[in-house]
């Protein structure tokens, strides 16, 4: 039975969301937490440049809209300046804030994958074409949780723009087994953690042919 749609939910922070999903096998970009600008520089030096720095906090969900993501930071000075800016932009509603430092994942193709709860069918797993045109293209396919490997493979075939998954602008073809693995991991997460109401991997970047989640958002019932 689908659960009652009225139960209250909360959204986990990005790093908590990623930890939850990574535990079930979702590939996420490696990242480090830092408390301040100096910590962010140290983390960036350990990960290797260029990096992304984001403000993290329990109350922060829509980082991009608020300008709380700084991409392609090439050296320590850029990281230091971005970190100071982001910490200064925090508001009291954001709660305890810190910095998230991650390597800049490069890839020309963005997909979206996730979990959503349908009021009639219960938890579903979704795969779609991501990026700025995602909603206009609406090239998405869904299955009911749990899925099997064959369902995951068929979801990839369902995409209307599946040509996008072949060799593309100097990048190799998408590793379909790895991409199916993302969908199976999401399904496994939903089965193991019934409190998950929704999950977003947006974007799921195809880097050297392999999918990597560079942002994640998990919503759970309280």
């Amino acid at each position, binding site marked *: *039975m*689908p659960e009652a*749609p009225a139960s209250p*939910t909360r*959204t986990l922070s990005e790093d908590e969301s990623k930890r939850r999903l990574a535990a079930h096998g979702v590939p996420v970009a490696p990242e480090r937490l830092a408390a301040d600008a100096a910590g962010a520089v140290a983390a960036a030096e350990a990960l290797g440049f260029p990096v992304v720095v984001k403000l993290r906090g329990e109350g922060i*969900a829509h980082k991009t809209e608020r300008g709380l993501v700084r991409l392609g930071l090439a050296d320590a000075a850029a990281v230091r300046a971005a970190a100071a800016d982001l910490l200064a932009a925090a508001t009291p509603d954001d709660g305890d804030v810190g910095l998230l430092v991650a390597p800049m994942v490069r890839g020309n193709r963005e997909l*979206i*994958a*996730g*979990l*959503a*709860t*349908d*009021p*009639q*069918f*219960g938890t*579903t797993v*979704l795969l*779609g074409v991501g990026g700025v045109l*995602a*909603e206009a293209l*609406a090239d*998405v*396919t*869904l*299955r*009911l949780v749990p*899925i099997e490997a*064959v*369902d995951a*493979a*068929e*979801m990839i075939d*369902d995409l209307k723009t599946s040509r996008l998954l072949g060799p593309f602008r100097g990048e190799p073809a998408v590793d379909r087994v790895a991409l199916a693995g993302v969908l199976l991991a999401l399904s496994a997460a939903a089965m193991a953690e019934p409190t998950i*109401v*929704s*999950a*977003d991997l*947006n974007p799921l970047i195809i880097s050297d042919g392999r999918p990597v989640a560079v942002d994640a*958002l998990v*919503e759970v019932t309280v």
Partner: protein
Amino acid sequence: MRGEPPAPEQFRALFDPKGVVVAGASTHPGKFGFVSLHNLLAAGYRGDVFATNRDGADVLGVATVGSIEDLPAGRADLVFVCTPAAANLDVLRACAAKGVRAAFVTSAGYGEAGEEGRRAEQELVAVADDLGMLLAGPNGQGVVSTPARLCAQIVAPYPPPGRIAVASQSGNFVSSFLNYAVQTGVGISRAVSAGNAAAVGVPDYLGWYADDPETAVGLAYVEGVPDGRAFFEQVRAAAAAKPLVLVKGGATAGGQRAAASHTGSLAADDKVFDGACRQAGVTRAATVEEAFEAAATFATQPLPRGPRTVVMTTAGGWGVVTADAIGASSLELAPLPDDLRTAIDAKLPPRWSGGNPVDLAGGETRDTIPEVLELIAGCPEVDAVLQLGLGIQSNQARMMRAGPFYPDHGLDRIVAYHERQDARFAEAAADISDRTGKPILVATELAVADPANPGPATVRATGRLCYASADRAVTALEHLWRRARHLQRRGRPLP
């Protein structure tokens, strides 16, 4: 909320009753209580027929009784209820006492009729449940079962017998499917209009059809799916046993929850339903017509083992357009292997196309079409065949027969020859399909433009569907291939 599906013996009482009671038979030919008795008798139902009428009047030669209590016990196991809603609880109780195990309630005034109607419906369900009686409807059009020659419905038609079983949330779509059966000759095993589906829903019927030896394929129309998860589990189990074709109308109620997530906003209801169908191996058709043709194809053709399709045509343009349709589908236009091409060379002048589509280019003589068809279907690298151009000789014959010169100038002989040839070609398609175990679909607009043409008429006589266009044949064949692929990928045997 509905409970467990009815037991098999309850379904047998509905679809294969030894006797039927029409409760509320009327002497007025415009009333449902008359029409339902008329249809039951006119279709030649094999079992006993009883009827109740307030005044005990004869209706259509059936001696009615004023009350169910006056009927013999143990002679009927289905009651077709036309009485007003207020009378129906007593009708069910009295029928149960006589051994009736299933009721089709056509009366309105239930869940569709406001708060009071909803209460009456709940009461009806509870009483039927207590009595151990299957409750179909209420507010439905009826039930058809050709193995029993049963036509207990308030509408026409009574379809030809066949292997398609229909269940619909809308009674009018039962009629639509049955009308297509009448038109095409591809017949029906069972059909039921679920009405308000108070106790028995479309997936419950589909579950029983899956085990019904008279049925080869389920065909259903659904609208709202309030408990989608339970629906999914039921149709998945049914589709595991045999093909199941669904057409869905309307958007489901309610949007996505989790508005905070991007995923949620992309997950439109229809895409969830579509994904659930793919996962369950259910064939989803876009229109009622496409749904019937898919079901008719499942019922009358073997499943292809692969996507490799060959088009055989007597003229170029048809083949080109059909090749385009195949190219836009998940079927493949199979390249002709060298040995097949050489074998066809021996049957035709060199101007034939030399590839797929196999365009005979007017080079055929008396036996060419059956012989080339046999070569193509017999080739191990071919999974399915589309045959185009049937009936053109008979179409000319028709004009000759109707013209001012017939039967002189040798016209009688050539007309008879043309008509015999088209009939042979249609028979060859069915025979070769049976022998090779491969689908061979015949398409011509003459199927609707001139159904009496010996080409399409003979296709119908072989029990198969003559497709009104090559595009529609490609769509139907693709549905078969997708089902075969679904089974193959999951390691399940093909029938």
